[in-house]
């Protein structure tokens, strides 16, 4: 496929994931962690990928960055990414799924054009190098600047994310910073090379609510200023409502519903999305109100149900259809797609 047709197919989105399959070949069996996922990330927008443990949301992110741990492997699918314009030429479109994970192209994109922030900033910084030095290294790797300039840039970016007295803080080790400051430093590192896509994997899950609010506000502000797109991976529907423009709901390796944020919360279509919204505890509720849980539990990845992966827990289960057919993600309204036999 030549670059031209690719460009046409990718007129709008910054990132377009098509039918991505990432499997883990283990001695105990095959785990289809990501099993035919498709979604788009629009420039300057925030796509929230939401789901419970084992739904494949983190493996999807790692597949995009090509950092899936062995024995995991991308089996199929495309990850089309529009690169940053260079030398007056429009951004080239590359299929990340076809790149060598350790090749020069992928290394030029990873960290510079697509950055990642993790849930646990403690384990994502080196414990024996100062936080500032790690950011300096990232800048030196991707930009042609001197060490002194990189240091100045690091101080500037730390100040920008709200780290107080960054000149002193940058010489501290990760464990000397509080959880909130560590996450700010992590964001500073991610933003140091002005990525066009920021992947945030549960960025506030390890933080307290008051700190979480500060970090979410910071991410929104930085997005307004830099115009980067955010792919936000979370299990927290409150964070989704707060941050997202678009939402993809995942269950057992598949996107079951994708829609603008308002439609997900106020006109959800897929039985899983609806059940999930009913089951979450809310702060605006009657005191000691009983909740409406989803029956059962997420199945073990070794024994995935046949047909629709949600059918054993689905209140709308139709025998003979849901346990036989695997529904595909089809549009039900503009920008709203659902994967359920009810809408096929």
């Amino acid at each position, binding site marked *: 496929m030549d670059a031209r047709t690719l460009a046409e197919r990718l007129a709008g989105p910054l990132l377009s994931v098509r039918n991505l399959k990432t499997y883990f070949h283990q001695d105990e069996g095959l785990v289809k962690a990501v099993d035919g996922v498709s979604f788009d990330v629009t420039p300057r927008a925030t796509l929230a990928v939401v789901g419970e443990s084992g739904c494949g949301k983190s493996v999807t992110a790692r597949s995009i960055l090509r950092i899936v741990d062995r024995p995991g492997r991308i089996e199929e699918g495309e990850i089309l990414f529009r690169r940053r314009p260079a030398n007056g030429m429009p951004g080239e479109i590359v299929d990340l799924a076809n790149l060598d994970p350790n090749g020069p192209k992928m290394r030029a994109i990873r960290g510079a054009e697509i950055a990642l922030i993790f849930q646990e900033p403690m384990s994502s910084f080196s414990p024996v190098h100062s936080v500032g030095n790690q950011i300096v290294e990232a800048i030196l790797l991707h930009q042609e600047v001197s060490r002194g300039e990189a240091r100045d840039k690091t101080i500037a970016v730390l100040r920008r994310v709200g780290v107080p007295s960054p000149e002193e803080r940058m010489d501290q080790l990760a464990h000397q910073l509080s959880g909130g400051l560590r996450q700010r430093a992590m964001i500073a590192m991610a933003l140091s090379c002005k990525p066009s896509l920021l992947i945030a994997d549960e960025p506030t899950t390890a933080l*307290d*609510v008051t700190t979480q*609010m500060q970090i979410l506000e910071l991410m929104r502000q930085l997005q307004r200023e830099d115009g980067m797109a955010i792919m936000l991976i979370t299990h927290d529907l409150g964070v989704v409502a707060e941050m997202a423009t678009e939402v993809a709901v995942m269950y057992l390796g598949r996107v079951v519903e994708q829609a603008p944020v308002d439609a997900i*919360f106020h006109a959800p279509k897929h039985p899983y999305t609806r059940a999930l919204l009913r089951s979450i505890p809310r702060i605006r509720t009657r*005191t*000691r109100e009983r*909740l409406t*849980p989803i029956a059962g539990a997420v199945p073990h990845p070794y024994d995935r149900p046949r047909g629709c992966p949600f059918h054993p827990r689905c209140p709308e289960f139709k025998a003979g259809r849901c346990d036989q057919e695997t529904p595909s993600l089809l549009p039900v309204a503009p920008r709203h797609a659902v994967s359920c036999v009810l809408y096929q």
Partner: protein
Amino acid sequence: MSAPSAPLLRIAGLQKLFPIRKGFFKRTVGHVRAVDGVSFHIDEGETLGLVGESGCGKTTTARCILRAIEPTSGEIFMRTADGAVVEIGALRPAGLRALRREMQMIFQDPYTSLNPRMTLLDLVGEPLLVHGMKSRSEREARVADLLRRVGLRAEYMRRFPHAFSGGERQRIGIARALALHPRLVVADEPVSALDVSVQAQILNLLLDLQADLRLTYLFVAHDLSVVRHISNRVAVMYVGRIVELAPTEELFSAPKHPYTAALLSAVPEPDPRAPRRRLMLEGEVANPASPPSGCYFHPRCPHAVDVCRVETPAWRELTPGRFVGCHRAEELKLAGVE
């Protein structure tokens, strides 16, 4: 809810200091004031929610009550099944052992709190054996009954915990806690490690068990939405002290302490149309090893005045059942959530 009866548990001036030791001789150079003068009571059959951010001392408070750690000072009174009130701190080991049947704990992480080498029968039956139920068949019958009660099948009792999902493991932990017919159950973040769709199952189970067995819960959590779904009353902790304690409805709809109001406004609501009423807190939680002067919350408080910087606010009852520790509680109009 039935009318509240006399307190099952009463705590007065509970304090737990952890020494900070430095140097060759391990001299004590200071203390972490993990729990710093906490007082409250829990009525029989009710749920008291204890909320706060990490490091505020909520877990330490819970562990002191169970005497899993020794409090530095303060008194803990518990009314036993025969109606006598005993001071837990003054009990000798034999007395404490007898009382421990009446207080049990549910842990946060169902993956690490169950011994992977024990079957469900051994896990749930262990407290029975320890407390004198020697007959195996009797134990099996009781374990089967307990498993059914928490929504598991009795046939599962020969299996090991790894065969179960997180929600099912939490049910096993609950069955174990219930084995000795406790009256007080301390649940420390019992649903925060679970998937959202499973949280609701466990919260409902706890509500049902409370109604059926007339249990009293101390429910320790950081998630205010979860706390609202389970608690009759809520206590909010900040840096080792309770700053506000009130009936759940009142605390959520009309908080009296600025920290409570800030916590409530920080919870992201699962509704993109919800009004954004942001009350951004500056800075971070104070260090309990060197807390600020006066009210511990004053450096972050948008309503702080001079007195807050010097004087510790008195813990007082504003209206019956509503306690607060804030100098300006009477005059402030703080926003809550309906």
